[in-house]
C-alpha cells in the first residue's frame, strides 16, 4: 500500500484511474445487462385459433379493437395475414411499448407457440399472406448475385447497400438487416410494415425474395477487406482515417520531434 500511496500523485495516475473506472463499468454492465431470450420455434396448428384469440383479447384488443377491426390507435388486422403477425410479434415490435417516430424492434414478448396461435387467429379473420415455408427462406437455394441486383434497385435506398440501415424522415429509419432472421425478412417484404412498401409476389417473386435473403446472408460473413467499420461507407472510413491513422502518425511525430535529451 505504501508503494501505491507514494505514487498517487504520479502524472499518469488520473489516466490509470480513469481506465480502471471504465474497465469496471464495462465489466459490471457486461454482467448485469439482461441477455436476450431465444425464442423456441414450434409448429402451427389450426386448433390454436382459440388460444390465439384469448391472447389477442388480453394483449392486442386495446388498440386493435375487440374484433380486430381497428380503433383510432391501431389499424384493422382483418386480412393482414399470419405473416404480418409473425413479423410484428416475432421481432418484438408488437405489442408496442412506446410511442415515437416508429415502433422499434425489441426482444419478443411471446414464445414461438404463442406467436403461432396469435397468427392463426388473425389469419382466421380474413385471407392474407401466410408465413413462408422453410424452403422459401432457405438462403442456400437462392442466387446471391440476382438478390444483390434486386436489393440495390429496391431496398438499398433505405436499408443501405448491404442492409446496414439508414435514416428516413422525421426520426423514422430503415433498420439494419444484419440480425434479422430470413423468415422476418421475407415477411417484411410481403407485408410492408410501417414505412416500408409492400413487395408482393407479382413485384418480387418468391424466388427473388429468396435471392435477396441469400444476398443478405452473405453480407454477414464479414468483409474480404478486414473490419467492416459498420458498412456505413466513407464517413466511418474518414473518421477512422483521422482518429486512428492521423492520431497514430501525430503520436509518432511527437515522439520523433521530442528533444533527444
Amino acid at each position, binding site marked *: 500500500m505504501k508503494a501505491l500511496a507514494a505514487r498517487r500523485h504520479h502524472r499518469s495516475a488520473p489516466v490509470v484511474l480513469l481506465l480502471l473506472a471504465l474497465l469496471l463499468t464495462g465489466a459490471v454492465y457486461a454482467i448485469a445487462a439482461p441477455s436476450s431470450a431465444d425464442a423456441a420455434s414450434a409448429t402451427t396448428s389450426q386448433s390454436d385459433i382459440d388460444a390465439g384469440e384469448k391472447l389477442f383479447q388480453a394483449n392486442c384488443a386495446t388498440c386493435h379493437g375487440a374484433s380486430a377491426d381497428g380503433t383510432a390507435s391501431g389499424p384493422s388486422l382483418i386480412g393482414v395475414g399470419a405473416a404480418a403477425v409473425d413479423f410484428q410479434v416475432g421481432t418484438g415490435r408488437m405489442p408496442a411499448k412506446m410511442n415515437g417516430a416508429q415502433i422499434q424492434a425489441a426482444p419478443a414478448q411471446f414464445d414461438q407457440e404463442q406467436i403461432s396461435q396469435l397468427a392463426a387467429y388473425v389469419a382466421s379473420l380474413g385471407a392474407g399472406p401466410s408465413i413462408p415455408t422453410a424452403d422459401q427462406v432457405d438462403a442456400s437455394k437462392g442466387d446471391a*448475385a440476382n438478390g444483390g441486383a434486386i436489393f440495390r434497385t429496391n431496398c438499398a435506398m433505405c436499408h443501405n*447497400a448491404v442492409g446496414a440501415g439508414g*435514416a428516413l424522415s*422525421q426520426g423514422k429509419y430503415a433498420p439494419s438487416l444484419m440480425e434479422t432472421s430470413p423468415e422476418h425478412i421475407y415477411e417484411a417484404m410481403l407485408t410492408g410494415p410501417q414505412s416500408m412498401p409492400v413487395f408482393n409476389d407479382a413485384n418480387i417473386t418468391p424466388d427473388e425474395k429468396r435471392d435477396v435473403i441469400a444476398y443478405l446472408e452473405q453480407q454477414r460473413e464479414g468483409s474480404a477487406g478486414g*473490419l467492416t467499420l459498420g458498412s456505413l461507407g466513407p464517413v466511418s472510413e474518414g473518421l477512422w*482515417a483521422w482518429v486512428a491513422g492521423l492520431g497514430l502518425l501525430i503520436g509518432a*511525430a511527437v515522439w520523433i520531434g*521530442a528533444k533527444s535529451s
Partner: protein
Amino acid sequence: MSTSTSTSPTTPAGKAADYLDQRTGIGGAVKEFARKIFPDHWSFLLGEIALYSFVVLLISGTFLTMFFVPSMTEVHYEGPWEAMQGVQMSEAFASTLHLSFEVRGGLLMRQIHHWAALIFMASIVTHMMRVFFTGAFRKPREINWVVGFTLMILGLLAGFSGYSLPDDVLSGNGLRIADGVARSIPILGSYISFFLFGGEFPGTALIPRLFTVHILLIPGLILAMIGLHLLFVVLHKHTQYPGSGRSDKNVVGYPLFPVYVAKAGGFFFVVFAVIALLAGTMTINPVWNYGPFDPSIVSAGAQPDWYMLFLEGGLRLMPGQTEVVLGQYTLSLNVLVPAVVVPGLLFTALALWPFIEAFATGDTREHHVLDRPRNAPFRTAFGVALLTAFFILILAGSNDLIATHFHLSINDITWTFRALIFLGPWFAFWITKRICLSLQRKDRELVLHGHETGRIVRFASGEYIEVHKPLDEHERWLRVGHEPRRPIEIEPAEDSRGVRRPGYRKDRLRQRVSRMFYEDRIEPVTPAELAAAQSHGGHDALPAADEHAQLTGSTAGGGTHLVDDEDTTRP
C-alpha cells in the same frame, strides 16, 4: 590543380563517391544540404506525413495501374465473387473486382492506396492549420502558401478522380452530383457538362478520361508543386517557434545530416507502417458491396470521402425552394450557392489570406520566428471560424448517420445545422478571440507577478501573502518576446493646403481592415512595466527582486522591502 595525389580516396565507397563527384559536382550540393539546419518540433513533421503518404500513393498506385482496365465497355462478370456472378458491369468495375479478389495482394494494395489518400488529405489539412495558426505564411513565404494551397486543391481533384475510377454505384452518384454542379453554372453549365462527359451523362468516355487525369496529369502537377514547395523551404530556411536565442536572423536546430536524415527517413517507414496497418485491418471502399454503376440506384448513406464531405453537407443544407425559373431558363441556386459560391468564397479567403493580412499590417519585414496563436487573436479566431464552418458542413453531410446513430430526426438535424452554419462560425470566432486575449492577459500576469507557489507566509504584523515564483528568463522571453501589433495610422485626407491626397481612399480601407484585426489587443509587458511591477508591486515580486534587477538593468527597492520567509539570516 590536381587533388588526386594528396586526397585520392582509398575505400571502394570513397572511390565511387569521387567518381560521381568529378562527373556531377554533387559534392557541393551534399555539403550544402547536409549542413541545413532544421528546428525540432513535432508540428514541423505534419507536412512530411503528406509527402510520405504521397510516396505511398505513387508506389501503390503504380501497382494498381498494372491490373486496372479504364474502360466502360459492358461485360458480364465471371469470377470468384459469388454475389456478382453474371452481373452486367463495365470493364473498369470488373477489373477492380479482379484486382481485389484474384490478384495476389491486390486488395491490400487497393486499400493501402485508398487509406493513403485519406491520410494524404488529412495531413495536408493539419499541416495547413499549423502554418496558418503560427503565421508561417508571412513574408517571405506568401508564394509558398499559395503553392501549398494549390497542392491541397490538386489533392482534392486527385482524390475525386481516383474515387470515381472503379465505376461503382457510390462513385457514380458522386459523378452525378459533379455533373449537377457543373450544370448549375449559369449559361456555361450544360456546355461544361457535355464537354466533361463527352455527351450526355454518364456516356462512355468518362472513365478513360478520368484515368488519364488521375494517373498522369494530376500526379505530374502534384510532383512539380511538391518540388517547388520544398525548393522554397530550402530557399527560405525553416521557420522556428519563438524562444530564447531564436530570432528572425538565425535557425536553431539540428543539421539535416545525420540527425534529420535518420529521423525523416525513419518517419517514412512509420507513415507506411500506419497506412499498411489501416489497410490490413479495415475495409475501405468495398465496391463489391455498392455494385456496378447504374444511374437509377442510390443507396442510403451515399457520401463522398471525407475531404469532399463539406460539399455534400452544403447541398444537404440548402433548401430546394431556391431553384428559380426565369421564363424558359432554370437557375439552380439550390446547387450553385452551396456547391460553387460558398466553397469558392471560403477557399478564396484561405488562398489570399497572407495578402489580406499583409494589407492589414502594412508589414514588409521578413518573419522567420512563428507566432504563438494567442498573439494573433484575429487570425486565430478567423481560422477557427473557417474550420468550424467546414466541420459543420461535414456533419451536415453525415446527417443521416447522425440521425440513425443518435436516434434523432433528420429534419431536426438539418434545421439545426442550417442555423449553426450561420451562428457556429460567428460564435467560434468570438469565443476564440476572447480566449486568445485572455491567454495574453494571463501571460502579462505571469510576467509581472510570477507563478503561484501555494506557499502562504505570515508576517510579524499579521499580514498574509502568497509567495509568487518569478519566471526564469527563458519563459519570460517566450511571453514578452513578440512585438505589439497596433492598427496602422494613416495620413490625413487633405494636406496642409487643403488639397485632396491621392491614395487616401485606399489608405482608409487599409485602416479599416487593420482596425478590425488589431483594435482589441493586449500588448506584451514592456521592460519599463516589468521594472515598475518589481519595485512597486509590493511583496509578491520580492523574493527574487535581485534577479529582476539584473535582467532588466534597473534597480529594485523603491518600495517596501519585506522579509522573505526563507531568509533565515534576518532577525
